[in-house]
């Protein structure tokens, strides 16, 4: 090759390299990971601090007011001070990603941190993960906004924020990645994986730097035998039951709370007070519960079997009370704790029932229980598997782990078709993965598809003049407008008026307004295409008129829709 073509080639490749937007995202991913890592560490520290500060008060009689006060303050902060009408973190992120390309408000990046700190730190039973994910995602979104990135890149950065957050909290970068891809983004694409991986790693690294390389739960060694694998099937059943119950309990509590006649600001206080009362008798129910989980994994959880069962029920109730009545936080940590409790229950029960069988340690079953609950509640089996493996640092558990995670999430899927996070969204029909029919239809707009080159005819035109008019058109649909006001009054379908067209007597006697169809449903410019298609199907029409403000704008036809639908689908799912 000559020198100039080599040069041209190189220049060409460099131009592509530079304009490839993936690089910007990769460059920013690390930064986003750092930011979300900081958020995670900050919350973690704050919770430790508050935990230590309040530790001394738990034996006072008025201690139950602490969670109440915390919850009220947190709701006040969130709703009144910051005016951020809270959803629960993760579903909001998914909503933003699926509907608006990951646009999140800036205030979300710090608001949840403060509010959940107040709720959990004072003893409320909730998890700090969802708020940190929300913060990380909002940070990612706003960084993308600051750099004026496109929607696709913004979505990736939102995912980076979430990955960094989870990685930092659990010191588990793979779990962070998998969580983001499985739950938040819902899709695995080459352009997503690298930035998310980078963010997860940077978040984790930051957390290690600031907090030391400790995970919330220490490494353990377990030896697994065939019996354990068999026993894990029982865990599946237990986990399924508990997951479904917890989900329903939370929903029920939410309904009860919203129907209550107490003033809005007082409601979280009620939930908090109830939790506080439970907490007087069972203090392990309070807070996020990492310490108790640690004990359980180490096998040093002392309370007896009956007490543990009570603890399971109490913790479930406490979580529902905290979150259902307006406290701020997530269900991740409570799920972990409840999961490990039921693992414990199962182990001790089995031990009591069949004392001759030697199972691996009860810590192992605590882990399996945790995996089961996460898989069941979030329906994210991969996240569960990776999280547990990364937490324990031991690979031996993997076989029973896979069994529990996969089976629990499958069973739960049959009973409750959506994960807890996504339930609301799916119910409202707002959960749309890219490349799905719902998504393609919601992305296309009527404005894009309308064809405007239709000739309108006045309503008092005689049929014979109309026939003259249609000679000059290649359409077979004609909108009819009122001669004075130009308002749309009906449509003429040439194929339906054939009998009249061929009868010369009718030509002089009939007018367009007599042969037009008035009952044709009309479409507005911002109608949803899914609805439009339904109307077309019900009325067996392949075209509908688009009418704005009583004026005819154009026709929306199925064939044009199909063309655009294909192109949209190809673009949405095609080149990564």
């Amino acid at each position: 090759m000559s020198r100039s073509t080599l040069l041209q080639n190189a220049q060409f490749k460099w131009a592509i390299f530079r304009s490839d937007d993936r690089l910007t995202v990769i460059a920013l991913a690390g930064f986003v990971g750092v930011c979300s890592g900081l958020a995670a560490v900050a919350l973690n520290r704050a919770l430790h601090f508050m935990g230590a500060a309040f530790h001394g008060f738990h034996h006072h009689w008025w201690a139950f007011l602490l969670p109440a006060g915390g919850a009220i303050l947190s709701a006040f902060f969130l709703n009144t001070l910051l005016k951020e009408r809270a959803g629960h973190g993760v579903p909001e992120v998914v909503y933003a990603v699926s509907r608006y390309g990951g646009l999140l408000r800036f205030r979300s990046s710090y608001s949840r941190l403060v509010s959940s700190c107040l709720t959990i730190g004072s003893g409320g039973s909730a998890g700090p993960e969802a708020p940190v994910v929300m913060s990380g995602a909002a940070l990612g979104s706003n960084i993308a906004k600051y750099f004026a990135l496109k929607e696709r890149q913004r979505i990736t950065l939102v995912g980076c924020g979430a990955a960094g957050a989870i990685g930092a909290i659990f010191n588990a970068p793979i779990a962070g990645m998998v969580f983001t891809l499985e739950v938040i983004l819902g899709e695995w694409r080459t352009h997503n994986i690298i930035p998310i991986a980078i963010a997860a790693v940077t978040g984790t690294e930051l957390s290690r730097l600031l907090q030391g390389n400790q995970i919330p739960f220490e490494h353990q060694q377990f030896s697994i035998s065939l019996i354990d694998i068999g026993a894990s099937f029982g865990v599946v059943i237990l986990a399924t039951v508990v997951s479904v119950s917890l989900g329903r309990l939370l929903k029920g509590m939410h309904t009860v709370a919203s129907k209550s006649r107490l003033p809005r600001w007082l409601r979280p206080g009620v939930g908090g007070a109830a939790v506080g009362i439970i907490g007087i008798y069972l203090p392990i129910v309070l807070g996020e519960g990492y310490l108790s989980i640690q004990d359980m994994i180490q096998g040093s959880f002392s309370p007896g079997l009956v007490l543990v069962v009570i603890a399971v029920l109490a913790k479930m109730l406490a979580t529902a009370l905290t979150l259902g009545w307006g406290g701020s936080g997530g269900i991740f940590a409570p799920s972990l704790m409840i999961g490990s409790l039921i693992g414990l229950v199962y182990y001790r029960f089995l031990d009591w029932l069949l004392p001759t069988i030697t199972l691996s340690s009860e810590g192992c079953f605590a882990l399996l229980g945790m995996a089961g609950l996460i898989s069941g509640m979030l329906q994210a089996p991969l996240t569960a598997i990776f999280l547990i493996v990364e937490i324990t640092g031991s690979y031996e558990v993997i076989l029973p782990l896979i069994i529990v995670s996969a089976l629990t999430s499958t069973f739960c899927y049959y009973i409750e078709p959506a994960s807890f996070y996504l339930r609301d969204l799916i119910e409202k029909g707002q959960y749309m993965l890219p490349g799905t029919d719902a998504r393609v239809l919601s992305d296309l707009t009527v404005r894009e598809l309308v064809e405007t080159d239709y000739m309108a005819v006045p309503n008092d035109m005689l049929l014979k003049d109309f026939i003259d008019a249609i000679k000059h058109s290649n359409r077979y649909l004609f909108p009819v407008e009122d001669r004075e006001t130009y308002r749309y009054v009906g449509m003429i379908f040439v194929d339906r008026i054939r009998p009249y067209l061929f009868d010369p007597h009718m030509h002089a006697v009939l007018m367009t307004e007599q042969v037009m169809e008035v009952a044709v449903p009309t479409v507005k410019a911002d109608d949803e295409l899914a609805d439009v298609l339904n109307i077309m199907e019900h009325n067996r029409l392949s075209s509908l008129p688009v009418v704005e403000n009583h004026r005819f704008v154009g026709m929306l036809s199925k064939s044009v829709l199909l063309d655009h639908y294909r192109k949209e689908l190809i673009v949405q799912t095609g080149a990564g």
Partner: protein
Amino acid sequence: MEERLLHVFRNTPLGRETLLQSLYFCNTLGASLYIYVPKTTQFIMYFDHDAVQVDLDGSYLTAADTATEHARQLAETGGINPTFLTPKNFTASQLPDISTNFNYMCCPRSISDLSSKIGLGYIGPKVRRIVKSSTFPVLITSPSFKEWKSICVFYGGSNNANKALSWGITLSIKTGFPLDMFTYTDGRSVDYFDEQLEAAKLAHKVKRHVRTWHKISEGKFEESLYTVDYEALAVVGAYGHGLIKDFLFGSKMETIQSWLPNNMLLVGPNCTYRGA
């Protein structure tokens, strides 16, 4: 397509003035009116690159049961059949999503604060954010309803000013009202502005459509504002020259909004101009 104007209705006498202004605007331009009667004090608008949460002042929820009726009655006397927006998607239970699919939006000077602040010299932060992110110009109304009979474009030579000028010309053509231009030379030579017009290919249109071009080279900017017709609709590009242009209104803009009680059409940096 038909042009659409978004109006957030406040069921108070002050809100009535604002709605009358929107009605006049729609009638003059032949745009259709979309009214949102808020049921909650917040709503969120998702633009291309920003999600703006608008926190409304509590007075927006006054007498909610009569609001729609009042709005409809007012619209009918204005001869317009409005469409009432019902939000279909919610970011949170109390936070509806309002579409950004409009050609104009009407705001009072402040949307988040008490009506007492609807004086000169104040354009609320939320309104500023909307102007900054929106793809459509924002109509800021005068405190009481005033018909405008001419259009005055404030031309400073920047890109935004060119955009504002294009909008001004389009409005003048559509409404048939005369179009004036106002330039405060501020130390630059008079030719500079002509050059900017040439570069933006607007010089020709300016010659055809502009009635008077006030070029002020002496005296204080504020004092020169007296030249602007009291019946004019002021069309201003909202973010001007310089580094700070992303964060604050340009200094001229601040002065204009403090001194002029006219109705103003603010053309933000993201406004996409669809040709006349």
